[in-house]
C-alpha cells in the first residue's frame, strides 16, 4: 500500500462535507481531483487521518455564465474549462491557462478548486485567477466569506483557507469589451511544471491607447504587478513600453531556487514572459477593436 491509512468519507452534499470538515478540522483533507494530493499521499509526505472525497458532491461541479459573472464550482474538472465554448469566447485567458496544466489525463481528473487550494507556485490557474480579478467563496459549517484571489494566496502551498473551510466556488467578473489576453510560460519539457509564467489582459481605446491593463506573474505566490499596470494605462503600446513594464514587474519579484532553476533565472524568465504576454495581449486587443479577431 502506497499511502498511509486513513478513514474515508464520501459525502454527497456540501452541508455533509462541511459537517465532516468541522468535525475533523486539521485531521482531515478534502480530496478533489487528487492529481496533487494523491502523489503526496503516495510518497507519505501527507498522511491525513480522514480523507473527505468531494467527488460525490454533485452540487460542487458546475460552470455557469448566465449573468455577467462566470461561476465555477470547485470540483469542476480542468478539462471542462478547456472544452467550454462560453469560456473560450468570454474568458479565453482561462482556457489558455488550463491547456498548460499537466497533460490531458491529468486535466480529466484535476479540478479548478483543487489547483487553487493546493497553491503550487508553478500552477497556472492561480496566476490566471489573480489576473482576472476572481474571488473565492470559502465556506465552513456556519460561516461563508468571499476572498479576492490576490488575498487568497499567502505563500507556497499556503492559502487563506482555515482548516474547517472548503473552497466551494470561484467567480470571475466579465472583462471589458475587446480585451486582449495572453498566457505565457516556460517549462523544461512540454507539460512539465512551469519554471516561470505570466498572464496579461489589455484593452485599448479608439485612438489605440491602453485603457485597461492587467499583468500577473508566477512566483512564490502569484502576484499582480500593479505598478507595471499603472505605467501602461494611457500609453500607446510599444516594445519599449512593454520592456519597461516587464522590468518594473519583476524588480522585486520573490522567487525560490531549486534543482530546476535559480531564483535569478526565474525572475529573468518572468520578465521575458511578461513582455511577450503584454505584446500578444496588445495585438489581440487591437485586432479585436478592428473587428478582425476570429
Amino acid at each position, binding site marked *: 500500500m502506497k499511502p498511509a491509512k486513513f478513514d474515508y468519507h464520501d459525502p454527497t452534499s456540501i452541508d455533509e462535507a462541511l459537517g465532516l470538515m468541522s468535525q475533523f478540522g486539521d485531521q482531515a483533507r478534502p480530496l478533489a481531483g487528487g492529481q496533487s494530493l494523491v502523489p503526496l499521499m503516495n510518497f507519505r509526505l501527507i498522511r491525513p487521518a480522514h480523507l473527505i472525497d468531494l467527488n460525490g458532491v454533485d452540487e460542487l461541479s458546475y460552470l455557469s455564465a448566465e449573468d455577467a459573472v462566470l461561476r465555477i464550482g470547485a470540483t469542476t474538472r480542468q478539462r471542462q474549462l478547456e472544452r467550454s465554448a462560453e469560456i473560450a469566447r468570454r474568458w479565453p485567458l482561462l482556457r489558455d491557462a488550463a491547456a498548460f496544466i499537466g497533460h490531458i*489525463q*491529468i486535466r480529466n*481528473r484535476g479540478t479548478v478548486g483543487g489547483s487553487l487550494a493546493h497553491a503550487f507556485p508553478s500552477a497556472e490557474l492561480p496566476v490566471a485567477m489573480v489576473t482576472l480579478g476572481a474571488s473565492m467563496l470559502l465556506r465552513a459549517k456556519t460561516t461563508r466569506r468571499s476572498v479576492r484571489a490576490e488575498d487568497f494566496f499567502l505563500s507556497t502551498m499556503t492559502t487563506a483557507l482555515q482548516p474547517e473551510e472548503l473552497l466551494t466556488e470561484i467567480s470571475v467578473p466579465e472583462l471589458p469589451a475587446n480585451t486582449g489576453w495572453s498566457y505565457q510560460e516556460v517549462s523544461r519539457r512540454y507539460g512539465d511544471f512551469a519554471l516561470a509564467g505570466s498572464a496579461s489582459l489589455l484593452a485599448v481605446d479608439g485612438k489605440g491607447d491602453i485603457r485597461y491593463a492587467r499583468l500577473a506573474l508566477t512566483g512564490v505566490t502569484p502576484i499582480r504587478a500593479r505598478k507595471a499596470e499603472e505605467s501602461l494605462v494611457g500609453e500607446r503600446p510599444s516594445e519599449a513600453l512593454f520592456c519597461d513594464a516587464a522590468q518594473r514587474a519583476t524588480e522585486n519579484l520573490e522567487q525560490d531556487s531549486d534543482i530546476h532553476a535559480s531564483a535569478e533565472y526565474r525572475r529573468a524568465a518572468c520578465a521575458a514572459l511578461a513582455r511577450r504576454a503584454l505584446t500578444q495581449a496588445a495585438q489581440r486587443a487591437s485586432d479585436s477593436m478592428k473587428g478582425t479577431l476570429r
Partner: protein
Amino acid sequence: MSTRQVCLTINGREYTGAVEPRKLLTDFLRDDLGLTGTHVGCEQGVCGACTVLLNGEPVRSCLLFAVQANGAELKTVEGMAPNATELHPLQEKFWELHGLQCGFCTPGILLTAEALLKEIPHPSEEQIREWLSGNLCRCTGYQNIVTAIHEAAKTLSERRT
C-alpha cells in the same frame, strides 16, 4: 482494518471486491482482479503507464483510489481486442510499425490513443503529440508510435465507411 465494497464494470464485465480505502485503483486491478495489463510505473502521476479509461476518459489509475471507481465503467488494455484471435486496429498498427520495443508504456499509450481517435478521428501530428505528452516511452523516440496512430486512424475510418 475497515474495508469498503466496490462494484464496477471493467471491459463490459462486472467486478466486485472489498478494498481498504487507501488501495490505489492500479493495485486493485492488478493484485485483486488479476488484470495485469495495466502497468505500474512511477506511482506519482508522471509516466502514464497506468492510464485507463474511466467512463471513457483517459486518467491515471495510480492517482485514484479503487473505492472512487465504485459504480464506474472502466476500460483497460485487456478490453481493446475484439476477441482472442484479433487485435484492435491500434494494436495491429503498433505491432506492424514497431510502435513499441519493451512494451512497458504500451497499454497506457494504446488507451490514450483510443480516446484520442474517438474525440478526433483524424488527428494532426501535433494533436497526436499533445495527447501523447502524458505518456512516457523511453525506447521508441515516439516516431513510430505517432505513425502507428495515424495509420490506425485510417483503418478505423475505412471501417466506418
